[in-house]
């Protein structure tokens, strides 16, 4: 009975619709990644500056990237990064190493409505901005948003900031935040079609799981919210993944991953679950990992490919996986693509 239940639980975890298969063994062409036995990987764009967010435009498949350290959102045209939204302010994340950050999480509500999570302003002033790209022909300024939301300080609660990653269902957009470290908020913007109507602190993840820093977020194929709790950046192996009911916020399942610092989570079109690990303490351990059930009914990770400070990922419709990497130094960031098959 116990094994049966555990098996069911892990089925829920990985949402397996197909058996996990190892990606083809190929060399790669990425300087910021190494995959001696991993999948075929291509560098799409070089020279990005702390890229921290990816969204794929519905209908066109065009990849948009938050080129965070450059304070801009770009779209990828061949091997070129074309500015779309520019002139975001810059803030600093970390005490050493330090990273310049501007725009962070990206999400399309429809083909022309792009939501951008900010990392550019102080906590409390940080903005979740909505842009209408219907008439877009040339770069627009960051303040051309059609709507903007923030979560300012109150008498009882700190202001929110660093809107790192975004996920959505029909009812709302869920945003991981990095302001109030006593609560670890995931905020929620209620959604009416392609409009956001209001923004609130929604889920206190730290109260639920006792670990800091919700960062990665995605919706499971069944519609639960899956959050990667990064944990302390100077503590190894402390990242969690936590499943919540998207309606009533109940914590459904919380699992230790033994990964160091999860920055992104995504399900492949085949229903397999993947995580990016930044591995702040030792970035040589970072990379793309598949999350799987193990024989004992727990979970295990399988490293697909080593990556140098991976920050965000998104699957395209054809199953290609796009990943942003900070790389070895500023302005050496990359967007890489892994061929379909994950």
């Amino acid at each position: 009975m116990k094994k049966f239940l555990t098996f069911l639980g892990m089925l829920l975890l990985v949402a397996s619709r197909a058996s996990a298969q190892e990606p083809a063994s190929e060399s790669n062409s990425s300087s910021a990644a190494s995959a001696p036995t991993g999948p075929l990987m291509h560098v799409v764009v070089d020279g990005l500056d702390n890229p921290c967010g990816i969204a794929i435009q519905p209908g066109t498949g065009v990849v948009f990237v938050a080129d965070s350290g450059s304070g801009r959102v770009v779209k990828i045209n061949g091997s070129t990064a074309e500015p779309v939204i520019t002139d975001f302010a810059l803030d600093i994340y970390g005490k050493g190493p330090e990273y310049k950050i501007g725009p962070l999480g990206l999400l399309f509500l429809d083909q022309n409505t792009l939501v951008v999570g900010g990392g550019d302003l102080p906590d409390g002033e940080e903005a979740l901005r909505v842009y209408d790209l219907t008439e877009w022909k040339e770069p627009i300024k960051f303040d051309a948003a059609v709507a903007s939301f923030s979560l300012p300080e109150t008498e009882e609660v700190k202001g929110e900031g660093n809107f790192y990653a975004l996920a959505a269902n029909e009812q709302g957009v869920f945003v991981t935040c990095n302001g109030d470290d006593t609560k670890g908020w995931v905020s929620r913007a209620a959604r009416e079609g392609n409009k956001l109507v209001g923004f609130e602190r929604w889920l206190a993840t730290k109260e639920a799981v006792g670990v800091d820093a919700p960062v990665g977020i995605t919706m499971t194929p069944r519609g639960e919210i899956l959050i990667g709790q990064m944990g302390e950046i100077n503590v190894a192996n402390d990242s969690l993944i936590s499943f919540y009911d998207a309606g009533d916020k109940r914590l459904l399942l919380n699992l230790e991953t033994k990964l160091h610092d999860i920055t992104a989570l995504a399900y492949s079109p085949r229903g397999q679950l993947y995580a990016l690990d930044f591995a702040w303490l030792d970035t040589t351990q970072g990379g793309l990992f598949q999350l799987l059930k193990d024989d004992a009914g727990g979970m295990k990770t399988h490293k697909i490919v080593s990556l140098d400070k991976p920050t965000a990922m998104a699957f395209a419709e054809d199953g290609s996986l796009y990943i942003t990497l900070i790389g070895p130094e500023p302005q050496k960031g990359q967007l890489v693509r892994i061929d379909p098959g994950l």
Partner: protein
Amino acid sequence: MARSRLTSFLLFLIGFILQSENASLFGQIDVPPGLSPLPVPATNPVNEAKIQLGKQLYFDPRLSVDNTVRCASCHDPSKGWSNGEATAAGVSGQRGNRNAPTIINAAYNRFQFWDGRAASLEEQALGPIANPIEMNLPIDQMVEKLNAIEGYRLAFQNVFGSDATAEHVANAIATFERTVLSGNAPYDRFKAGDTAVLSEQAHRGMKLFFGKANCTSCHTGPNLTDGGFHNIGIGMDQENPDQGRKAHSGLAGDLGAFKTPTLRDIAQTAPYMHDGSLATLEEVVQYYNRGGTDNPFLDEEIYPLKLNDDDVAALVQFLREGLTGDSLKIIEAPVLP
């Protein structure tokens, strides 16, 4: 909807089963309410004979080079398992520059020592014995010394099936330290539903603790620590400040960062901070209220809290009253072989 309920039920059952499995790891250690399942390494299972042997070693001054200093000298059960001084004296009265951290709930620490240089109690246990300014007894000499004592040799034979080794000593001491647990504090009973257990002032302090005072940005979870390292500014105004975690992690951002200690039974463990520089809980709260000591590596969670005098008093009252458990036993030094 029915499917959703079934899913939730199954997930609950899975969690329950996994938790029950963990409970079996406790061996013979009684874990008080409010704490998590006790982590026990598979390589060092608990049994009563090992606990008793570890206790003897913990209280035995012969583990120091001149038979004057025992583990309990600096981690004294009657002084909150610390020693009541800013820095403790080792052999020949030598002192380091750090406060003796409490043993209370050290079993839950991801890291041991203020800078986290040991990953487990077992890894930590021999460090102070060999440290020249603490007990200054080379480990090979320690083993030789213990095996020359018939009572110890027989005890090690009984517990480990062989004479004393360095690993056996570490495992025994760690096992004893693993029994030093603080829980079932008024805070735990409040969480369990006894809403009258806290005084009005402590209750107000608890609200501040979990809110405006920002304490839970670091002091979180059942053991009231995030297990991480933070620069809160202590000592950073000195010419050559203690490097703290940076000396081991190599990360520039870890300069002056030290491990977040548990706040369980914090009223018993004065003085406070990694250098013992703050004598009272009032001083500690006022320090945080000022926003710490500014420096380039100051954690961003340290900022002026704007607490008034009543707030400070209430917060101190919560720390003192709310977090003092009833599970710490009075430990007397055992009869030594």
